[in-house]
């Protein structure tokens, strides 16, 4: 069955306190060379049927309404490991 992944990340201009906490922990563990960490969420959706354009459009709506908050987050959709071009937003 096809698997669709939705990655959700805080927008670059939004403060990410969790990422900052991870960044602060790395040197304490002896890891060096990391200059920034951003923490996001990954949703793996198992689908019952084929990934058609209609299905992708529905997943885009899921991502916009529930999986992410467009005020503070961006999302990207991948199908079986390949990043899908975002469908054009209808005005």
């Amino acid at each position, binding site marked *: 069955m096809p698997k669709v992944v939705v990655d959700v990340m*805080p927008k670059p*201009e*939004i*403060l990410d*306190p*969790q990422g*900052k*906490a991870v960044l602060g922990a790395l040197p304490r563990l002896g890891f060096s060379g990391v200059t920034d960490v951003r923490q996001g969420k990954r949703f793996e959706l198992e689908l019952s049927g084929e990934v058609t354009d209609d299905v992708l459009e529905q997943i885009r709506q899921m991502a916009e309404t*529930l*999986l992410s*908050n467009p*005020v*503070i987050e961006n999302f990207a959709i991948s199908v079986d490991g390949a990043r899908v071009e975002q469908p054009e937003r209808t005005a």
Partner: protein
Amino acid sequence: MKVGVVTFPGSLDDVDAQRAVRFGGNEAVALWHGDHDLRAVDAVVLPGGFSYGDYLRCGAISRFSPVMTEVVEAAGRGMPVLGICNGFQILCESHLLPGALIRNDHRKFVCRDQRLRIENNRTPWTSSYAEGVEITIPLKNGEGGFVADAETLDRIEGEGQVVARYLEDNPNGSMRDIAGITNERGNVVGLMPHPEHATEALTGSGTDGLGFFTSLVERAFA
């Protein structure tokens, strides 16, 4: 007036909010997140807590509960709605209010008495206060940082939609020290600190929060 107080799974402050509604001279009506009607209430309070465990994002799942469909529709008709803490988060997720609330910039839960300035007393929830009055009420949140893009911040400040601002020390990294906002129409108010915990001298840090609950009555007789 009849004021509905919604209980979601994980709400904490619903009973205090009901009590504050009664202290304010109104009748409190308990509403359940699964309700499909608002039981003829005249106003709604969304209380604090951790609805649906704060899973996904604070307020993200509550937004889609059956009662919120009714609340969003009623707010659109001009019904007064007050969201406190988690209720504020739900109102932002519902797009009834602009912006969003993110984790405190210092990453710690904060619980303390907080000084605020009431900057807009033209809402049904703040008309008991003199504009510019300074009050102290409890604040307790882990994800209380108000954020929005610069354009939105300029707009809500320009339109007088900032209802309350933090004084002295910004407790959570909220942009422009914003503690509470209202929508363009002025009937929906979101506030991060907790006026319902400061309505009685015996159990609170004072009674500075009572005005949020007496404002409805004053408006009704105005």
